[in-house]
């Protein structure tokens, strides 16, 4: 029980099954993500992208198959769940910043109460990551006083402050106005170049081209296609993939 020390892939998903009541949301999903690898997941709405990455840190409970994160199996063992959540950061579509805390407190709270870091240390870490996402000057403001792009960058900093080994992004730019998208993507690109393991659900195909090692296309709860970006965009085999690509790149 010490996620991170073991060797092997960062995340391995085998035959993952997930039901919402009678609705079969994921069907036998297989995916392996190496350390330092950047994966972009795309697909039409309702195809199960969010469900897959939410299963990785147990925001959703899977009901079939195996998920292994950093060598630890994600099962009913509470210690495993806690350990994995500590090593996996997540960024949400709607930021989910804590509105009753300042930006700095948002970044400090988890390291302090989960990792039991002393306050001063937590603060230096927080300020360093706020610098990294290029908003050190907003530290004392409340989330409600920031723009969407700034909030999302705070959310990224907040996740990074836990110093996770894996970052999950669930459509981090789709709630943003167009002019704010690039400031968030820039931060993500920097993060990728630092060697972070990333799994991003996004429809930003430019981002996928630039940083992804692999692009995964999902439809109907299944992984339909999985390929490096240049291959994915130029010579995809599947009809559904082609149709989807023509829709989002088409105009």
């Amino acid at each position, binding site marked *: 029980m010490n996620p991170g020390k073991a060797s092997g892939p960062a995340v391995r998903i085998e035959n993952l099954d997930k039901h919402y009541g009678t609705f079969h949301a994921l069907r036998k999903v297989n995916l392996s993500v190496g350390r330092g690898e950047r994966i972009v997941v795309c697909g039409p709405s309702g195809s199960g992208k969010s469900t897959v990455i939410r299963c990785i840190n147990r925001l959703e409970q899977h009901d079939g198959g195996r998920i292994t994160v950093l060598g630890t199996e994600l099962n*009913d*063992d*509470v*210690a495993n*769940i806690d350990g994995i959540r500590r090593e996996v950061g997540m960024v949400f579509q709607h930021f989910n910043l804590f509105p009753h805390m300042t930006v700095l407190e948002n970044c400090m709270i988890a390291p302090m109460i989960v990792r039991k870091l002393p306050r001063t240390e937590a603060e230096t870490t927080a300020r360093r990551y706020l610098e990294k996402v290029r908003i050190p000057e907003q530290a004392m403001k409340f989330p409600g006083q920031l723009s969407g792009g700034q909030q999302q960058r705070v959310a990224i900093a907040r996740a990074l402050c836990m110093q996770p080994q894996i970052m999950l992004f669930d459509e981090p730019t789709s709630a943003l106005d167009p002019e704010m998208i690039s400031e968030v993507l820039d931060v993500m690109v920097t993060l990728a170049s630092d060697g972070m393991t990333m799994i991003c659900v996004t429809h930003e195909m430019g981002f996928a081209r630039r940083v992804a090692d692999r692009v995964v296309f999902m439809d109907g709860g299944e992984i339909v296609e999985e390929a490096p970006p240049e291959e994915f965009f130029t010579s995809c085999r599947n009809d559904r993939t082609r149709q989807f690509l023509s829709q989002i790149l088409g105009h």
Partner: protein
Amino acid sequence: MVSLLRNQKVRNALLQVLYVGALAALVLAGVVIARRNLAEQGITSGFDFLYKSTGWDVNFSLLPATANDPYWWFFLIGIINTLFLGTVGLMLATLVGTIVGLARTSSNELARLLGRTYVDIFRNIPLILQVFFWYAVITHLPTPRAAHEAWGMMLTSRGLYVPIPNVGAIAFAAAILAVIAAIALPVWLGRTSRLSQPFGERLGIQLAAAATALATAAVILALGRLPDLPLLDFPALQGLNLKGGLRIPPEFSALAIAIAIYGGSYIAEIVRGGFKSVGKGQMEAALSLGLSPWRVFTLVRLPLALRAMLPILANQYVWLMKATTMGIAVGFTDFFMIVALTINHSGQTLETIGILMAGFLAINLSLAAIFNRINKAIALKGNQLRA
């Protein structure tokens, strides 16, 4: 073992079993101890006592009651008293609340100020204090010999005496039903008739219906009249006491007045909220159609406001029903006071508490059911109106 405790599913199951088990054990232990304690006092548990006669009397009852009647009959009397006081109280409270609430929403500043002062004063004084106050006022009225008299009614420290018709009980009840019909029929007719019907014609039909119902009431009263007695029985002084007429005891009046005044201040706020929720746009639209202000009020503003008010009003009515338990403070034999007296006299504590809970559950549930029905009946149908 340790790893088993770390398992989420095991933990969840364990927590549930512990929680429910602990609560059940607590209740069970209470019952066991209580039964033992009661047995030591020679009280056998069970519901047999319901058929024994009480040996004490109630001071207010709509049904015949003597000290020889069994406990179950007294519980019934208590429930009926509670419902009766509650119904009278909430009708009066609604009346007061509507008047004050309308004053609070009126366009006249002085009327608004008056309404607001009323609400601010009476909402902020506890109900029980108001009950005590009115009870003191009534019991400090002059004795029957020096009674205040007006329109054949007598106001005394022993209660309010009003004249009643000398008719049989069944005929009297039937006549009351007919009078209720006289009020309900026109309302119902107004709801079912079409807007396209000319206003005058509608009014005619409504008036005719009301008149018919009232005439029926009069006929019933005339037929059910007791022989050889004047139609109305007036209270009159005989010796040191008043004879004749109907006596409304001070306990009842004090509670009804207090509930009306206190409840009225809450209902006024609900009425105000309801009218405030009706959009200006709908009223302006109606006015621009050329409807008269009165018809805009009755056809647009009132129905919409009523729909907004009803759910909150339902809660308030449930609250007022429960407030009748203050009867015990002045000695009105409502359901709760009967329960308290029963525990005192029979010692059947557990059973009686069970009956108390069941009784209030039944009252709550039936009120909720009635209001759900009304709510459904008047709810706006899907596309009827979009907020």
